[in-house]
């Protein structure tokens, strides 16, 4: 019972677990289950994408021409880098290097800001042109397909849901930074970093698929 009342950073754990390792592995299992639910939720959108893309291939090809692949590629690289720095923050925590751990978390957060910044620019550009979802589509230029609104609905729903998860992830990273600066993470305990990290990697994974599907379709 002596390990129960110790702080986590000294190897303590909640009363209903046998030891700290037991608690860590269970927390990881729980997060993987939660990630499963996220994959299913986004998966519904991916299913809708594939269904409509199959039914209206011309609409999707034409819609993609309004997306700038360079922005998408930069965002992909930014998120991949952020996954790298996220995993490094855990690496440094495991090696008891708090300062580097915090620095990595800050860089990860920064990548999140860059990603959202680029998304903001992309959205503003489209909104100005009237490239809006569904019924709100009001683009005045020449169009080939008659239901481009459907393409942009798909685009906004998928990137919007993804973007909201990036924001949530960034919030979680801020919380991790606060705790890391307090010295709560070390080789004995880094569970929160591990769990937030797994969530962040999922956000990266979804974008890895979104990028070719939305930007590179032809």
């Amino acid at each position: 019972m002596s390990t129960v009342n110790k702080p986590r950073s000294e190897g303590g754990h909640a009363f209903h677990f046998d030891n700290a390792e037991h608690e860590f592995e269970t927390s990881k299992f729980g997060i993987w289950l939660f990630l499963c639910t996220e994959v299913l939720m986004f998966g519904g959108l991916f299913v809708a994408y594939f269904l409509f893309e199959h039914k209206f291939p011309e609409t999707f090809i034409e819609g993609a021409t309004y997306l700038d692949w360079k922005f998408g590629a930069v965002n992909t690289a930014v998120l991949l880098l952020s996954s790298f720095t996220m995993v490094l923050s855990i690496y440094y925590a495991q090696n008891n290097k708090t300062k580097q751990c915090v620095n990595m978390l800050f860089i990860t957060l920064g990548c999140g800001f860059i990603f959202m910044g680029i998304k903001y620019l992309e959205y503003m550009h489209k909104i100005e042109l009237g490239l809006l979802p569904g019924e709100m589509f009001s683009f005045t230029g020449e169009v080939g397909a008659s239901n481009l609104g459907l393409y942009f609905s798909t685009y906004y729903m998928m990137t919007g849901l993804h973007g909201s998860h990036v924001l949530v992830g960034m919030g979680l990273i801020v919380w991790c930074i606060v705790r890391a600066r307090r010295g709560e993470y070390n080789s004995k305990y880094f569970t929160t970093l591990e769990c937030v990290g797994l969530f962040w990697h999922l956000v990266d994974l979804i974008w890895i698929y979104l990028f070719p599907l939305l930007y590179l379709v032809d």
Partner: protein
Amino acid sequence: MSSAADRSKNYLNEESGLWSWLTTLDHKRIGIMYMITVMFFFLIGGVFALLIRAELFSVGPTVVEGAAQYNQLMTFHGAIMVFMVIIPGIPAFLGNFFLPLQIGAKDVAFPKVNLMSWYCLIIGAAISFYSLFFNGADTGWTFYTPYSIETDNGTILLVLGAFVMGFSSILTGVNFVATTHRLRAPGMGFFQMPLFVWGLYSTAILQVVATPVLGITLLLLAAEKTMGIGFFDPALGGDPVLFQHFFWFYSHPAVYIMILPAMGIISELITTFSRKVIFGYKAIAFSSVGIAAVSFFVWGHHMFVSGQSQLAGVIFSFLTMLVGVPTAIKTFNWVATMYKGSIQFQSPMLYAMGFLFLFTIGGVTGVMLAVMAVDVHFHDTYFVVAHFHYVMVGGTLMAIMGGIYYWFPKMFGKMYNEFMAQLSFLFIFVGFNVTFFPQFILGAQGMPRRYFDYLPAFEPLNRVSTVGSWLIGIGFLIGLYVIVSGMLKGKKAPDNPWGAKTLEWQTSSPPPHTNFHEQPVVTGGPYEYR
């Protein structure tokens, strides 16, 4: 740490005050909070049901002014019962309380997440009821497009409320899967777990896998209502039936979320009150997981006449009949358990036997509906209404009541009034059949469901049905009295009044905060009566 003095402290009296309950991390307290919440919502949903039946007592307007008001009543009756009562009802209440106890654990894997799931239910329910200030919703709890898009009232709030309540279900599911995998006592492998745990585990898998799809479906519906995204709008190339595909991909597994824990309870009740080891433990365990898996393949049987293709319909019809097989296996095994057992007819067992009778009728009529040629006539008639009330009320609700009385002494350390409990059962069982059996006939004669009014020829059976609903109401009011008076002034209960063998009975009634006075070690199966 297990001196006699400690045994006076239990999870109920260890801390006091409302705040200690609202911030508790103890799975037993959270289970009790869910119990009170679910019973409260059941009361409201039940009142709506009585109003519906009162309206249908006579042709023409009876207690409501017209179709608009009636449609709101039936929508809320459905939404409340589905999202606030039957889905959380067993897992979040009895499951939360007894899953850790039955596997010899000290709590669920994630106690804070557990508390969060309760708040999700409360907040989601509050948002749902808030929609009533905007004329509620009149789409039916299934929100079919295009009407749900066009209707101009509080529908979007009900949709959002359901979304938040979905999180409650997901969090419970994540917790239970992790708990079952990681917190079993030494010696308890998967095949030494009680069947209630198998039921909860299969349900939890469904909660984790199916609910997120409902989440995205509701989000898409909300987006279509507010921004006109067009996924379900043919004018933009969308498909209204796509909503139904997405919706039922969750909602069919959802009905197994409703019944699997109930079946788990029935396994416990039948074996305890027959004082005999359960027949075919592994078959029942595998059937639970099997039902959960196959439940994902059958959603289109809700859509035979919606415009989906005939080929898709045939595929779904065939797969639906498959899901009846594991269910039948369980039913046969329960009856085989009773055979040559030493049957005790206390109220939990009465409810278990009531379940066997009513659920069988419900299940068999489900197989009837699976036959596409039959469903073409019965779809959207009272036949379907009768079918699902037989499985959900005759099935799940019977099991909840049986479970409440079975585990009452463990949860509260007191006994309830057995005679009044049996009286309650009588009113509910008789009243239920009087209410719903005529509805099979009405449906076969062609009376449509969800309609505010009906042809005069249907009136006599509708009157019978309404009288039945009053009997059910009386039965549940008596039940409420039994539970509350038992909690307040019941006789002190022993640790194991039924002589049952599962782990929760090896600790005191009520259990202490950490569940067991000593770490249990399991050396045999859960039902070794002889």
